[in-house]
């Protein structure tokens, strides 16, 4: 990892930082009393989460009949939300694993938060397959374990079972990866802490001492986990897409789904990372660590994946026409022109048209536009899943069974509740752990080699002046 020192390379961290400053900047948020914004956000999140929990209890108590699903549309918001959250949960591992393997050093600025986001998103996602069951209390039936019922094993042909394995593996590996990264940082927190707090962080850091052996093992483990996670990034959403692709329903039964879903997942995941990063860097004053360069890089990924998704949409349309099969043709006709035309339109606009703004460099580097478009992309990706799931089911083979769907307050409540869960977790995370990987970012401090001289130094000073003007 010997960095090439070159004045040509742009620095990855701005602001003329020293190692100590980095520690100060990144660890101090865990040490201060929470800000007003944090408290407000936390109260709000917990309130929303509480309502979500109430809606889930209501669902389990009353039955799935408290949702507006029907004999034709047996999945809608539940699985839409599931796929959406799983998609969002893709960026973290991609950033930490694939970008690690590709030696994309800028990733260290955002990987910690992105990984945390992944874990929380996967938590939100895995809620839905559980609560959408008619009899959640029998959920253990889905697990393959020796039992006294024969034994009866789960159906290994079912994509839903593959989901169970895919998601649980993904969650486990992501969690391990995230925690591995946190160990040296927890040690740093511990070293600065006193009393009981010190004890807690000592436990959390597994007694990390920072010895060379520790670092060597830590690096090896990171690489192993990165190697393990890399195929997972591709497999999880591939398997989620099998829920649809292996079915017999026109509009679901397509071979394009795995790459299309993975691209879409990265697309939405990066958008969500951007949304969160832009807020976090502002609130925690991390502009020097999460820089415009980061935003621009991620916008490039969004532009690429958004365009891949767009190509996939057009391919789908072409193939449906080219198939010469009426049901297939009708499925896409119905998506675009049927009763849910607005969701198809929303999907096309948000996912394909909106990211095209990022062809222009200055727009890629515009924080306001990026923030706005990152939200637009996530709305678009939600629409995409709704189009695939509800619109497709609403009108399939037999016209007699066509139906329509709109959610009940319970379904909306559960969806909103997952935001509560997500932000509650994220806010706690931002309080107890450094949101930027301290140990890792220190590696790249001197990558550019010109932090102390030249333009960057000037700009940093300028930036500093600017900051001090405010205070």
């Amino acid at each position, binding site marked *: 990892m010997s960095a090439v020192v070159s004045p040509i390379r742009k620095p990855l961290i701005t602001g003329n930082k020293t190692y100590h400053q980095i520690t100060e900047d990144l660890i101090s948020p865990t040490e201060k009393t929470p800000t007003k914004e944090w408290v407000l956000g936390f109260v709000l999140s917990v309130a929303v989460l509480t309502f979500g929990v109430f809606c889930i209890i209501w669902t389990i108590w009353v*039955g799935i009949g408290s949702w507006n699903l029907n004999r034709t549309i047996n999945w809608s918001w539940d699985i839409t939300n599931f796929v959406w959250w799983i998609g969002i949960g893709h960026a973290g591992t991609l950033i930490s694993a694939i970008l690690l393997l590709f030696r994309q050093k800028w990733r260290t600025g955002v990987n910690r938060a992105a990984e945390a986001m992944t874990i929380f998103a996967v938590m939100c996602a895995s809620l839905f397959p559980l609560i*959408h069951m*008619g009899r959640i209390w029998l959920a253990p039936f889905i697990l393959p374990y020796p039992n006294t019922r024969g034994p009866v094993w789960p159906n290994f042909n*079912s994509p839903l079972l593959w989901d169970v394995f895919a998601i649980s593996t993904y969650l486990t590996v992501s969690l391990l990866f995230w925690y591995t990264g946190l160990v040296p940082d927890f040690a740093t927190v511990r070293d600065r802490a006193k009393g009981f707090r010190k004890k807690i962080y000592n436990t959390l850091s597994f007694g990390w001492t920072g010895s060379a052996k520790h670092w060597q093992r830590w690096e090896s483990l990171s690489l192993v986990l990165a190697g393990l996670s890399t195929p997972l990034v591709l497999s999880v959403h591939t398997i989620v897409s099998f829920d649809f692709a*292996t079915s017999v329903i026109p509009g679901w039964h397509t071979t394009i789904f795995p790459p299309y879903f993975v691209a879409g997942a990265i697309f939405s995941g990066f958008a969500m990372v951007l949304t969160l990063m832009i807020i976090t860097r502002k609130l925690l004053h991390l502009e020097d660590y999460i820089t415009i360069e980061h935003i621009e890089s991620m916008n490039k990924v969004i532009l690429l994946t958004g365009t891949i998704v767009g190509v996939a949409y057009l391919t789908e349309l072409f193939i449906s026409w080219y198939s010469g099969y009426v049901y297939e043709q009708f499925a896409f*006709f119905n998506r675009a022109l049927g009763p849910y035309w607005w969701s198809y339109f929303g999907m096309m606009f948000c996912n394909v048209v909106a990211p095209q703004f990022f062809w222009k460099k200055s727009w890629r580097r515009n924080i306001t536009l990026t923030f706005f478009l990152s939200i637009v992309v996530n709305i678009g990706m939600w629409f995409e899943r709704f189009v695939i799931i509800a619109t497709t089911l609403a*009108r399939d083979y037999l016209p007699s069974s066509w139906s*329509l769907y709109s959610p009940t307050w319970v379904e909306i409540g559960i969806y909103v509740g997952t935001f509560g869960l997500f932000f509650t977790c994220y806010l706690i995370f931002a309080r107890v752990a450094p949101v930027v990987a301290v140990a890792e970012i220190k590696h790249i401090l001197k990558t550019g080699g010109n932090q102390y001289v030249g333009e960057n130094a000037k700009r940093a000073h300028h930036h500093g002046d600017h900051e001090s003007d405010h205070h």
Partner: protein
Amino acid sequence: MKHKTDNIWIGQKDLVQDQEFLSTVDSEFNSDSSTLADATSSLSGNRRDFLKFLGFGLGAATIAAGCDIPVKKAIPYVIKPDEIVPGIANYYASSFVNGGDYCSILVKTREGRPIKIEGNALSPVTKGGTSARAQASVLSLYDTNRIKGPQVKDGARWKDTTWQEIDKMMVPTLSSNGIRIISHTNMSPTSKKAIAEFVAKYPNTKVVTYDPVSASALLDANQLNFGVRAVPSYHFDKASVIVSFNADFLGTWISPIEYAADFAKGRAINDVTKASMSRLIQVENHMSLTGSNADNRILVRPSEQGVAIAHLYNEIVGGGPSSDGLNDKAKKAISKVASELKSKQGSSLVVSASNNVSEQLMINAINNALGNYGTTLDISMPSYQRQGNDTDLKAFVDDVKSGSVDLLLVYGANPVYDTVYGKELGDTISKIKNKVSFATVMDETSALCDVIVPTHHYLESWGDVEVKKGQYSLIQPTISPLFNSRQAEESLLKWCGSSTVDMMSEQPYYEYLKDNWKNTMFGGQNGYATFQGFWDSALHDGIYSQNSASSVAYTSAPLSGGITKPSKSEIEISFFETVHLANGQYAGNPWLMEMPDPVARTSWDNYLAVPVSFDGFRNMVGFNDLVDGDVVEIQVGEKSMKVPVIQQFGQMPGTVSLALGYGRTEAGNTGSNVGQNVNDCITKGENGPQLYNTAVTVSGKVDKTKEFACVQYHHTIGVKGVDNKTGEVINADEAALVYFDYFTGATGFQGALTDRSVIYTSNVKDVAENAESLKHKREHAQHLNAQQIYGGFDDKYALGHHWGMHIDLNACVGCGACTIACMSENNVPVVGRKEVSRHHEMTWLRIDRYYYGDVNNPNTVYQPMMCQHCDNAPCENVCPVNATNHSAEGLNQMAYNRCIGTRYCANNCPYKVRRFNWLDYTKADLWPINQPTLRNESTPFMADNLTRMVLNPDVTVRSRGVIEKCSFCVQRIQEGKLTAKIEGRSLLDGDVKTACQTACPTNAITFGDFNDHEGTLNKKLESPLTYIALEEINVRSSVNYTMKVNNRDEALDA
């Protein structure tokens, strides 16, 4: 061991500190532990542990057991009745009768409970067919609203009383001047005898008979022409051209089970190269069940029915009343029909539901002129299924108004609701001093009576029926009366002090019935030497036929009164009887209330059928721009009401229609206040009610119904209309599916709704050609399926049984008997209006109804749709827990206990036949709080122990959160296999019949074994019209359909 310091001692030796005792106490564990260790060295537990475990185990078991649903009542027989073997069903022949509705049936009883109605194949009238009404009648036995015993009115409240009190109370009232017995059609000779005895004793008695939907004019016309006041026997199978003026003979008119079976015979296509079938031409304004099965529909306004008949009369007989006022299109079409009829002398049939005597006389004259008497209709064997007399009813109402009636006995009738005089009768009935009702459940009339002396439900009764001249059938009880009821005839006989019956016997009416049969029917036969032999045989068969046909000659009669005058009003409303509720007689039955109307596919309300037309571009435009579920205000005569709307294809422009039978106020929890009562909107004609009204206004949309309970949102499969830009005929259906065109002007793409491999249709002219094209399509699909990467499935089921089904779409008339039979057989829950409106209906078997052809006057196809038991089932491989899987006999099975409710199977079912228990419909949850009610009843429907008596013990009741679906009546398959095994033989073709199959009046459904090469199923599959819905997706469905063939004459459309 330590010496005790407290004062606790065990025994006297302990108290005195006996050393020997203390040493044994000390050594107790030591000595034991050494021996124990030897014996069970691997166990570390001791006595205390054992007790702990025992305690824990008991406690855990108690807690676990406490969580389970306790078995409440399971009482073994002390003395087992001979004929009852637990787990084995007994069948008793009986007859379903309700007024003029008749069906010869077998009642399936389990452990002494009637649980299912089957058709009686021995009956020459119904021939083993049933109707939805007959199927559902078993539920009315267990109606929680049944009157539990004799009651008298005490002020505004009902008070229980005893039969002795009642009988004592009746004595003085019987000597009064004006006694009336009012009833619907009564087909029972023995009941009539009992009434006759009563009338003989009290000569001031008059018997008033009416029908809720009157056929009085038809009877009167036959009285004038033939001297027989009855309905002729129609033979729809022998007619090659059938013209029906508004007679819904396949759904509701007189004897639909019989007519549907005959009609289907005339529609069968045995050889596609020489295909021929009868042609049905329906003249009507509202799409009735019969109209939907018709080849051609001639649209006339309700008030034009008279002139339409007159026009045909003039064309065929001549010299009739003027047909002025008939719309030109209909006039032309009827002229063409007339020439076709004339060419089919003796093999045509004209029927009418008109309630105008002159019009019915014209119909008789037309049939006579065509030489149809003796061939397609037969008055020598008249049917007694309608006996009502409108004149008598009118006179009765006048008598009530004038106060000349002192005692009213209401016997199986509800005149306050189901007559056109309902309102005035309700207002004036209080003038009658004594009003006695024999009702089994409370109704509008009984509520206004003073005394209710409940009669038995027919499944608890003895009785007989003379459905046609010489065609008798018996009613026998299949359960002892559930409540303190007494047969109405027994009451009458008791009150008139009959000497012909022994009132002290255990079942007086049974003795009376037997005596009557001994004296009448027994004498007319020579098959049996003893009466007992004759009786046992008749009771066993349920029927007894006597050849007593006598030829009757036609004598022409002058047209006695005017015919219906065409109205000039802008809009007319017609009223129609529904298959499921009749004129409200069945409104209290939840199965029938929830049964979707076969044509409109709506339930739990009467929806105003409004015409709909294609705008030539994008939309199906309803009358007044109304769309499904809009609420309008409608003014009929003086009555104003708000009703929801359904766009009805085939509804004549300028007319709207509303169903009878709704808006009852006293019909128990299910039937009360559902929809609007339109009986008081019916035109009171000169000599009887006419089911339409011309004084009607319909507002625009005033509201939107919250619960639009319609089970089918998309009604058409490729209807064609004219594009108003190009003038070309386009697929109107497809164009109307465009909701938004992104400003491209897209009008849909052609084909996706006509080429769906779900329904195949053909005109009878083109059937050979279409059969050929179907063959190519099927070959193509099978070729595609052969390309699969997985091994075939066919050899998998080559041994043993491989169950399959064949459904003949040409035979299916859509009556819905099978759907109710399925609910009854398989314990399918009723979910209520709200749940139906959310598309949560639970029906395992539904009948999809599609319109095709001309958008303005379409043809219809009915497709019974249930689980197709695919041999490559998409539902099975997606279930994560293997809850749905395939049997070795090709059945797609559900293991309810295993189901966790992911609903993936339901999504992946191409036929959308899987049903999810969204809520606790069957009340099987541990807690009662989430049990949905049908209509806010205190004990939810299906939670009530009385209602639950109807459940089939062979079929699991499903709990909330699991998927269910058609099982091909696996319990019947199992029963058939076991019977064969016990009898030491192999299973024969026809041993196993599904509930839908046995219910069907037209034998449209055939269940069987694909591996039985000689079986009926395989015979049916040989037809080149056979197809599999969605064959090309390789799910390998086990249900085969046949192409729907119509005999539409395009010339009539011009």
